[in-house]
Every structure is written in structure tokens, then in C-alpha cells.
């Protein structure tokens, strides 16, 4: 087993890097685009006093539609788009495109859900003090929901670690890809065991780190 490990170590290392790359791009897109989208969904959602509710409805419909796709179908369906963005449809960079597309609406919903946890009265108090909508978002909503959002990001990271493995099917690379190629197609069980062990360790680490940060941010 050790011998085998040393044999695949370089490839394992490369695959690990690819996984991190895919996760990094996907999660960055989720935070940078999905986060604001979640805020917009919240502000224009039902029960919230917001202008342009129809915007909320349209965006909500769009989010639901993208989230309806099984990930593997989304990946295939997005191939032409991926080619335009990444220049190719194979490799970890290309796989990051559908990963991001799936992560953005997913995170948006998680953020929206977390913002609903902020007590209505606290938002109202800010309103009564003369805060603008933007100030309510930045100084109230994001502050009060911050630990929940870290937990949401943790959930997202773990889901997308396994999504990135699916990306291996179309040559996406990464640890999951390694598991499928060696462990599944070539029946090399020990490689499969090693990759699964690495994935388990990553999930535990992400969960532990996310939980810790969230607890530290939560002063309630």
C-alpha cells in the first residue's frame, strides 16, 4: 500500500492541487456573485418591504431553474459556454465554469435563508434610526448573519468537493477523477481507498474550520 502510494504520489499531489483550484474558483464565484444575489433575493422576496418585487420573482425563477439541473447534465449543457469562457471544455479550469454556475444559485439561496434569521425588529430599529437600504445590508444584515453565512459556505464547500469529483467524468481532473480512473475503471482498490481517505480528511477539516470560525464570529 505504501509502495503504491509512493507510485501515485505525484499524480495524487497534482490531483489535490486541481481539486483546490476548482473549489477555490467555484467558492469565490459563489461568494462574489452568489452572495449579492442572495441579498437581492432576500430584499425582494415575499414578506419583505422591497421595491421591484418582480426582479425578485425573475431572479428566484432563474435560481430555481439552474438548481433543477442534475450537475452532470448542467456540465454537459454548459460545454459551449465553457469553451467560450475557459477556451476548452476539459481540465480543472474548464470544470470550474459549471461548478461556479451551480455554486452561485446554491449559495444565493443559503444566504437568503440566513438573512431571514436576522430578527425583523433589529432591521426595523435601523430603519427607524434613518439607515439607508445599503446601510441596512452592510451594517445590519451582513453583521448579524455573518456566522450563519460562514456555516453556509462550509456546507457549500463540502457539497462542491463531491461535485468536483463528478467533474472528473468529463476530464475535469482532481481527486475524484483519480478515484474514478484508478479505483473504478482500473479496479485499483488501494488508490481508491487513498483518495477517499483524502476526501474524508478534507471534509472533516472544512467542517471543523468552518464551525470554529462561525463560533468565533457569533456573539449572540
Amino acid at each position, binding site marked *: 500500500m505504501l509502495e503504491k502510494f509512493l507510485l501515485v504520489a505525484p499524480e495524487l499531489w497534482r490531483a489535490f492541487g486541481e481539486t483546490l483550484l476548482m473549489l477555490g474558483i467555484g467558492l469565490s464565484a459563489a461568494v462574489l456573485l452568489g452572495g449579492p444575489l442572495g441579498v437581492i433575493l432576500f430584499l425582494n422576496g415575499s414578506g419583505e418591504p422591497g421595491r421591484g418585487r418582480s426582479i425578485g420573482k425573475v431572479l428566484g425563477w432563474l435560481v430555481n431553474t439552474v438548481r433543477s439541473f442534475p450537475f452532470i447534465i448542467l456540465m454537459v449543457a454548459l460545454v459551449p459556454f465553457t469553451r467560450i469562457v475557459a477556451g476548452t471544455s476539459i481540465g480543472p479550469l474548464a470544470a470550474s465554469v459549471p461548478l461556479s454556475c451551480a455554486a452561485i444559485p446554491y449559495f444565493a439561496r443559503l444566504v437568503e435563508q440566513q438573512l431571514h434569521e436576522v*430578527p425583523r*425588529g*433589529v432591521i*426595523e*430599529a*435601523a*430603519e*427607524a*434610526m*434613518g*439607515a*439607508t437600504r445599503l*446601510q441596512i445590508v452592510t*451594517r*445590519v444584515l451582513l*453583521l*448579524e448573519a*455573518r*456566522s450563519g453565512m460562514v456555516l453556509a459556505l462550509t456546507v457549500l464547500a463540502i457539497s462542491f468537493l463531491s461535485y468536483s469529483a463528478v467533474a472528473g467524468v468529463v476530464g475535469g481532473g482532481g481527486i475524484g477523477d483519480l478515484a474514478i480512473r484508478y479505483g473504478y475503471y482500473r479496479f485499483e482498490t488501494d488508490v481508491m481507498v487513498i483518495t477517499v481517505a483524502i476526501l474524508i480528511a478534507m471534509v472533516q477539516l472544512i467542517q471543523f474550520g468552518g464551525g470554529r470560525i462561525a463560533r468565533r*464570529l*457569533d*456573539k*449572540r
Partner: protein
Amino acid sequence: MTASVPVIRVERASKAFPLPEGGRFDAVREISLDVLPGEIFGLVGRSGAGKSTLLRLMNLLEKPDSGSITVAGQELTALGARELREARRRIGMIYQHFNLLANATVFENVAFPLRIHGAMNAPRLKARVAECLELVGLQGKAGSYPARLSGGQKQRVAIARALASYPTVLLCDEPTSALDPDTTRSVLDTLRDINARLGVTIVIVSHELQALGSLCQRAAVVEDGRIAELFDLRDHSVPRKTSLGRELVYHAAEAHAAEVHAGRPPGELHA
């Protein structure tokens, strides 16, 4: 009362809410009301009578369906969004459940209204926050988070926050309903104190008649979205029409007697 210009003027204001099963609920029906500068004005009524809605009309947290609201000479109902935000700086509000930012320290909570209006530089802001915390007796708690404070302390932080931007009016929505009797008394003392020292006009909604009886100069009994009666608590020349009104006068007389008995001139602060 002398004929001074009212600091809050509610004119024929109405507010109805749509009910989930259709139809509507008339919370406030064509109420007109003047609150005079420097007084402590009580609003009493059974739950659902419309007293909280009436209070929330005064800073336009609820927009009236008809009628007008004027505070400190400014007709709020005629203002644009930007001017309304500006006007709200001068209208403080405290709530039953305090509504503090849980993830912000006491200092940051009190600094909040100052920061959102960007009106002060850092040293002035710091001094103002310290001043307000001292006013409510919470100096030394600036670095604490609300979760570490008792209910009474949280309400004091809320009062300090409401006072930070020099309000002319302080609206209190059931400020002591979540507090025990001892804490209630001390929070009421704080309110009485800032009214006396700063001259801030206070409008307070509560179902605790004893608290209102000891605190208010005038009160209105709200019934079914209308003002059933409005009177001076020390005026015994006319019998009160409503049972809430009679109870309130009784508690006011009792509080007055207790003060006299304790050898203090009426109206002076409790220790």
C-alpha cells in the same frame, strides 16, 4: 397646560392592515393627537387596540393610509425618503425586545445612529457614545456584547442608542414588558431622568398601568383604533369614562402619595 406648539401632531391619521383571510383590520381610525414639548405622554389600551400602531405612525415605521404626522415642525408624511431618514435622526425609539445588534459591542450599538449619518468625526463620536452610556449608567460596559448583559442593561443600551443623535422625541414601545418589576422601576427612573435633564419628549406605550401612572403627565386610552379619552393624570375634576382611565388615575395618585410619603417633592427622581 399652556398653549405651546405641539412637538408631535397626529392629524386624522388612519391605518388598516389587510388580513390574511381577506378583509382588513382598522388599527387606527382617524386619530388626531397632540403631544406637547417636554411631556411624558402615555398610550394605554388592550392588546390590539391600536396603541402600538399609533406610536409607530409617529416615526412613520407605519405609513398612514390617510392623515398627516408632524414632528418638531416637520410634516413627515410630506417628506421624501432622504428627508425622512434625516428627520428620523431626531426621533429615537426603544422596543420591548431591545432590538440591539447581537454581533456588535455596546459601544458600536450606541455609535450606530451616529455612524450611519456620518455626522461626527472619530473623537467626537467616541465622546458622545461615552456621554450617552454615562447618562444611562453603563460606563465601563462599552466593550461588552449584548448577550452578556441583563435585560435592564440591554434596554439601557437601547436608550443610550436612541439618545445618541440628540433626539427631540423618544418613542417607547412596551419598553419594560420583558423586564422584571425591579428592573422595570430602574428603567422607568432612567426615562424620567432623561426627560427631566434633557427635556426630551417621551411617548410611551405600555399595558403596565402602574408604570405609566408613576411616569406620565398625560395619557390617552386607545380603544378599537380610536382615542376613548385623553386626560391629565393629576386632574381629578372630571370622572374618567373608561376603566383603564380610572385605573391609571388611581395608580398616578398612589405613586404621588408614595413620593410625598417618602418626603420627596412630587415629580422628583427615585433613587
